[in-house]
């Protein structure tokens, strides 16, 4: 079903790129007004009903809080599978049919796709929106503005700053120092392998995890300006990261189980995995998937490429966007701001949906201030808050990430099977991405 659907997606993306451009011209009477000028984003008169599509569990309860306080702006939550499993495709279909929801949850790596296909309302001129910049972690704001002037296309919702989960007990017993650099990490990998375990698992399917590592190293996969997109999956930093993991793979010092599978969980639960380089949401993944190791884990910053460095990567996170064609962009923008900055809303979204907010005030929330039992009482969220402030704000995603992920992950699969290297996968992924952009008439710089 999935593979089949992927092909349909690709084919449809091409069609919609053309048709949407046409639609934008026709249906843009109200939205051109919304695009430029400061006076354009005005409140509607009378009561307003908004629809909001999200796949975060429990979001309806959070929205209930808003609905109680704002009888004139009632928001209805609609739900579906997570973005790449169908909801994004639905958004594109609905944009084409002109009945998209007012608000939609969109992950950062999918935002450029919606931007390129003109699916997002620019809400920069809506009251309070541009001033909200200071309330969000720097890099997340960069993700929703694309570095354009006078532009805000979504409000940051949650983020996934990365750190290293590690088995404190095992490292202590074995007398191995907890690695702080990637060099030490590789040395530890060798010692751990000698004891018959793995330092970690290389997730072949999670290309966004790999991108998070490139991000940490200071790399850039995409950039764009007036002349078009520059695709660079094979830059110096990508090569550094690819060669590093290639080395660990060739020496069989990392396992290659499919992420989040039963075997993968079991291998963490049985103590075969000593570390996991992952995002903040990984804490609950571990606690559920490896319950027998409770109390034995700890969190440290990601290993660094340079001694004494503090760089961190990011894996995941999403925004609340106002979709093109919404009749009430002002109210939608106000709701999106409230949803992602109100302390009560943030606390409930974390409790029910496991979101780690993109708002800086996250550190004040009770859920993130105490120690976590699973991690021996460590205040792990301090580590992630620190990591979050050390994420490079200039990293840009491309407009066809679903395709890029698929192509690179196919290459990773081959590399793990001994056919080519991770670097080869990036090279072929870059070529395929350039092709895909061209086929959608998106300008590419060669």
């Amino acid at each position, binding site marked *: 079903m999935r593979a089949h659907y992927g092909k349909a997606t690709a084919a449809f993306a091409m069609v919609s790129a053309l048709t949407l451009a046409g639609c934008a011209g026709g249906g843009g009477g109200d939205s051109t007004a919304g695009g430029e000028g400061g006076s354009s984003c005005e409140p509607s008169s009378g009561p307003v009903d908004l629809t909001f599509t999200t796949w975060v569990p429990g979001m309806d309860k959070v929205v209930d809080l808003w609905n109680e306080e704002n009888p004139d702006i009632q928001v209805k939550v609609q739900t579906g599978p997570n973005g790449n499993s169908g909801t994004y495709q*639905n958004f594109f279909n609905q944009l084409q049919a002109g009945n998209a929801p007012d608000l939609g949850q969109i992950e950062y790596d999918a935002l450029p796709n919606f931007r390129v296909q003109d699916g997002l309302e620019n809400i920069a001129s809506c009251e309070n929106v541009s001033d909200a910049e200071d309330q969000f972690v720097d890099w997340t704001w960069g993700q929703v503005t694309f570095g354009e002037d006078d532009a805000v296309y979504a409000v940051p919702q949650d983020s996934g700053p990365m750190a290293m989960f590690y088995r404190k007990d095992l490292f202590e017993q074995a007398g191995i120092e907890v690695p702080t650099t990637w060099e030490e990490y590789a040395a530890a990998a060798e010692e751990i392998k000698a004891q018959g375990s793995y330092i970690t698992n290389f997730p072949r399917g999670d290309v966004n995890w790999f991108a998070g590592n490139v991000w940490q190293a200071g790399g850039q996969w995409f950039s764009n300006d007036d002349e078009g997109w520059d695709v660079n999956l094979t830059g110096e930093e990508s090569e550094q990261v690819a060669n590093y993991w290639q080395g660990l793979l060739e020496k069989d010092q990392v396992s290659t189980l499919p992420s989040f599978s039963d075997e993968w969980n079991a291998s963490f639960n049985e103590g075969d995995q000593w570390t996991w380089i992952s995002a903040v949401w990984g804490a609950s993944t571990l606690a559920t998937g490896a319950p027998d190791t409770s109390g034995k884990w700890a969190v440290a910053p990601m290993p660094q490429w340079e001694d004494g460095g503090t760089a961190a990567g990011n894996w995941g996170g999403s925004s609340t966007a106002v979709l093109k064609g919404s009749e009430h962009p002002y109210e939608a923008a106000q709701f999106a701001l409230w949803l992602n900055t109100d302390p009560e809303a943030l606390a409930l979204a974390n409790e029910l949906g496991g979101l780690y907010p993109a708002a800086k005030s996250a550190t004040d929330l009770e859920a993130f201030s105490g120690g976590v039992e699973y991690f021996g009482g460590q205040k792990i969220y301090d580590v992630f808050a620190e990591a979050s402030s050390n994420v490079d704000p200039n990293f840009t995603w491309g407009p066809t990430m679903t395709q890029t992920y698929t192509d690179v992950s196919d290459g990773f699969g081959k590399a793990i099977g001994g056919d080519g290297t991770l670097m080869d996968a990036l090279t072929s992924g870059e070529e395929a991405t350039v092709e895909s952009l061209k086929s959608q008439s998106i300008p590419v710089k060669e």
Partner: protein
Amino acid sequence: MRRGNSPRGPRHSIMSRTGAMLIMGVFTLYFLTPIWWLLVSSTKTGGQITGTAPLWFTMESIPTFFSNIGRLFTYSDGVFGRWLLNSAIYAGLGALLGTIIAAMCGYALAKYEFKGREAIFNIVLSGVLVPATALALPLFLIFSEVKLTNTLWAVFLPSLVSPFGVYLARIYAAASVPGELLEAARLDGSGEIRTFFTVSTRLMAPALVTIFLFQFVAIWNNFFLPLIMLRDQTLFPVTLGLYAWNSQISQIPELRVLVIVGALVSILPLIAAFLALQRFWSSGLGAGSVK
């Protein structure tokens, strides 16, 4: 290979029967193992799924199973029960009405001479070749025009159409409803519609059961159309609901258990429908072969 040609017939017969049994045994195992896994896994907690033998129960299986079922039906305000009900409506009513429509259509094509009959039949037949998935997006755009997306009708109406059902009904009506009988009914003053419902449908019953079963299973398992059409989770059928949960497992790991138990519960109505209607169905297949 055939035993008739061999002088050592009986021995070959035993061998080929053992061979056949062996092959069938292997296939049975192949098909039943995943269901067995599903059954066993639904009696475990999240940690036990990875930590214990995958194909056997644990000591606390029975209480765990009931607590899993309890959580399944209470999670997110009991939305799973709603999904089951939706599936039952889509599949039950959809298959029933779809069967009646297919039966009438196939019967008309088989028993009435009219201009363009073969052309209509061929067009319907070509509909069998078009996968439902390919029609989902055009259907979405059409339903958007009439503002029926995200309603029950968006899934229900397309489910009523079954080209394969029409094909089957025509073939079966041609073979099992004698023209003489219809003549007799007409002479006795019975109207065409009355004849159809009182005489013909009874003769066609085995085929109708088959069509109903096919339609029921197809609608119950239909996933792509609801995925595209529906946004309100209170309208989801159980397949789409479980898929939505499954897509969130990496973030909300406790859903893993609920997806497994939910999958088990969601196949029970299919099994029940097959067991209940199997009797009629196999008699239908048999009747066809005697003709």
